[in-house]
């Protein structure tokens, strides 16, 4: 992740012996959460491959990734929020609301691209409201986004009168249903966004500020970070990404459902935490969140293939989350602060 600074002589470096540096590098690599999850993902895949041949087929992976991809797009925003010490419970509602807005405006004759912009704008506005209330008025993220979750879902029901919206044009559905080289569009889109997002959060100064904000909010303010603006941006971005994911989902199903995205917020937060972020803030990467989503997807896929009752899925997701946090807590207690 970070470039190592090589000892090139000079008075500062006596203590950084080569062997120590190697050890340090190794320690850092193995303490990477990404490294751990990657190992678990690979090990899980190997076991599944050996026991059930169907697991490693193109069809299975295509279905699995399609499911994961839509969650992943939401997880990008959620990761940035968790890194900065916040979180958002309203993403599931925003997801459904934006899909419905796009579908309705399209049904009433708007061209697909314009309808898409309407949906995205709706998401960004919801996110902006969250951010404004949290940063400027100072109500905590839990209460604010919990209320927003209800309000947005309620608005959705009012606008749609509780009915699903179908009959969307082919030119719109292609976003979710088309494929390139046999791989469905949502997967391409999600992979591209994860890649760009991961680089931005690691390397771009603007996004990097979130680690400081999440590490110590008051110190960040004293260090000259405009924390209110940054928070509002983060929530707006998360709203926008949730909306985008909701629109892709609508395109894929060819219809907007009023119950879409129910429980999505908890699934996404779980994936992000499994991927190495902490609710205390200051930690997490988008790559980690992607792997966290993937791990949960593989787990559910494996349970299905193994013929485990589908009702166990939710339980297993919860247990995985708890296990991930437990492992992390024990790993952490060894390097206690003095």
């Amino acid at each position, binding site marked *: 992740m*970070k*470039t*190592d*600074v090589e000892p090139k002589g*000079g*008075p*500062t*470096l006596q*203590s*950084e012996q080569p062997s*120590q540096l190697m050890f*340090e590098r190794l320690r*850092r690599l193995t303490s990477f959460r990404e490294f751990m999850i990657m190992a678990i993902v690979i090990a899980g895949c190997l076991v599944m491959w050996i026991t059930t041949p169907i697991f490693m087929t193109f069809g299975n992976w295509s279905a699995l990734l399609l499911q994961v991809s839509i969650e992943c797009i939401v997880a990008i925003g959620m990761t940035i929020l968790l890194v900065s010490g916040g979180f958002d419970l309203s993403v599931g509602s925003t997801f459904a609301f934006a899909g419905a807005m796009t579908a309705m405006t399209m049904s009433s004759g708007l061209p697909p691209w314009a309808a898409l912009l309407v949906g995205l704008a709706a998401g960004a506005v919801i996110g902006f409201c969250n951010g404004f209330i949290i940063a400027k008025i100072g109500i905590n993220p839990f209460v604010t986004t919990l209320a927003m979750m209800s309000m947005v879902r309620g608005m959705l029901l009012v606008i749609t009168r509780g009915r699903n919206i179908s009959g969307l044009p082919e030119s719109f559905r292609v976003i979710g249903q088309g494929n390139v080289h046999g791989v469905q569009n949502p997967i391409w889109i999600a992979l591209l966004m994860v890649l760009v997002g991961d680089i931005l959060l690691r*390397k*771009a*100064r*603007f996004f*990097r*500020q979130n*680690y*400081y904000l999440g*590490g*110590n909010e*008051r*110190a*960040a*303010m*004293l*260090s*000259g*970070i*405009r924390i209110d603006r940054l928070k509002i941006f983060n929530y707006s971005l998360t709203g926008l990404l949730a909306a985008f994911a909701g629109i892709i989902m609508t395109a894929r199903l060819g219809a907007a459902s009023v119950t879409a995205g129910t429980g999505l917020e908890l699934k996404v937060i779980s994936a992000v935490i499994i991927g190495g972020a902490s609710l205390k803030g*200051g*930690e997490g990467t988008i790559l980690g969140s992607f792997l966290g989503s993937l791990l949960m997807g593989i787990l559910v896929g494996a349970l299905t293939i193994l013929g485990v009752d589908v009702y166990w899925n939710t339980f297993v997701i919860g247990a995985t989350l708890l296990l991930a946090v437990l492992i992390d807590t024990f790993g952490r207690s060894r*390097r206690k*602060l*003095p």
Partner: protein
Amino acid sequence: MSGEHILELRGITKDFPGVRAVNKVDFDLRRGEVHAVVGENGAGKSTLMNILGGVLQPDSGDLFLDSRPVRFVDVADAGRNGIAVVFQELSLVPSLSVAENIYFNRQPTDRIGFVASGKLHKATQQLLGLFNLQVGPARAVAELSMAHRQIIEVLKAISLRPRILILDEPTSSLSATEIDRLFDNILRLKSEGVSFIYISHHLPEIFRIADRVTVLRDGKIAGTFGIGEVDEESLVKRMVGRELTNMYGKRISQIGETYFQVERSDGDTKTAFNLRLALGKGEIVGIAGLIGSGRSELAMEIVGITPNRQCIVLLNNQQFRFRYPAESIEQGVVYLTENRKELGLYLSMSIQDNCVAPTLRSYTNRLGFISDHQIGLAALDARHRFNIATPSVRKLVGQLSGGNQQKVLLAMWTGARPKVLIVDEPTRGVDVGAKAEIYRLLRDLAASGIGILMISSELQEILGLSDRILVMRNHRLVAEFSREEATEEKVILAATGLAERAKKLSGQEL
């Protein structure tokens, strides 16, 4: 041991990492006396009271209560032995009522075990009557002024019916009439046989109320006197009397032109106080004053942490009113907080990430991307220049010692190429070795032309390092001394508000 002593301390010693806070202290308290304890900040008063109150355990030495050896394992244990402490930091729960705070965890109950609120409120009302306080027992403490909270704290201690009552700066937010009430109550309880240990910076109070006074200096007893045997000036001399060592170094360059000024005028807000100060290039100006005199508040207004429209900053003849630290940092006016753990550093992040926190922009290319390689090099350079003791700049700052943390804070802010550096308690919680290094760093920074405002509660530091000394009291500048004319006595007299004497001694009255 004679029976007139209710409490005796013999050879009490307490060490903290890097410092012996209390060193072989002998102390006794007679039945029904008010025994004042005075000393500078850091002289060991609070540590000693924490030992008496059961908060801390002494490393060695003996405590005798009624000539019986005792050892208090915790606050409740001290309480059972009849010792109550009113600490400087108030310990009330703001969301609870006055009555619930006073009778915290020992509310009168009825037969079923429910709180008997009638009884509770009646008892509280009686206590409030002692201070003639017009406050309902059911009012939430959060709604009360600081002065009333301080009184509630005293009442809470009185309600425990202690035999020994320890008061640590009990008058810091009280008005003159409230202080009179407090003293009436002390005299009444005294006549009932209660003994008092009374800690205060306000020497006149001590001469009003105390029977004897003990001076603490550097953790040791510097003398115990009957109140008739001493006057204020001789007490002050006892408190500070020590040779300055040369750990502060010498000025190594000339002071340049005045380039930084602050003017704060009386506005419509209650907190604004007239104030004007100026700083020259390469000059170190010390700001002395008691805790709560408004020094940190002033600094936070200057850099825009708590923006004040009445606070105008003139830097190189340009006028600013900073609304956010982001703005002051951009102009090169930076503030190093006294509270490095909560406000200054990112404890869960690495040294290198901390070092570049305010200056991320300078490690960013045109596309907005950060170079971690550059950050690492800068951190290694800082480790060398500030002599930060760490095997790796990737170590978490929370794992460093206090002195090294303070150096990281200095590295972090000098990296921002400041024009003006405001340091607040730069050596708090730092051991002697690191202190000397920090002084050397401040000297070097001044030599490079940076003007430094140094807020400190350590008088030696102020006197040893400053070219000029400003004294604040009650949010105002009350005195200014040049390096030559300043003495510890003059500064203390000005800071504690013995204004008449300060006027006589001070070269310039502001």
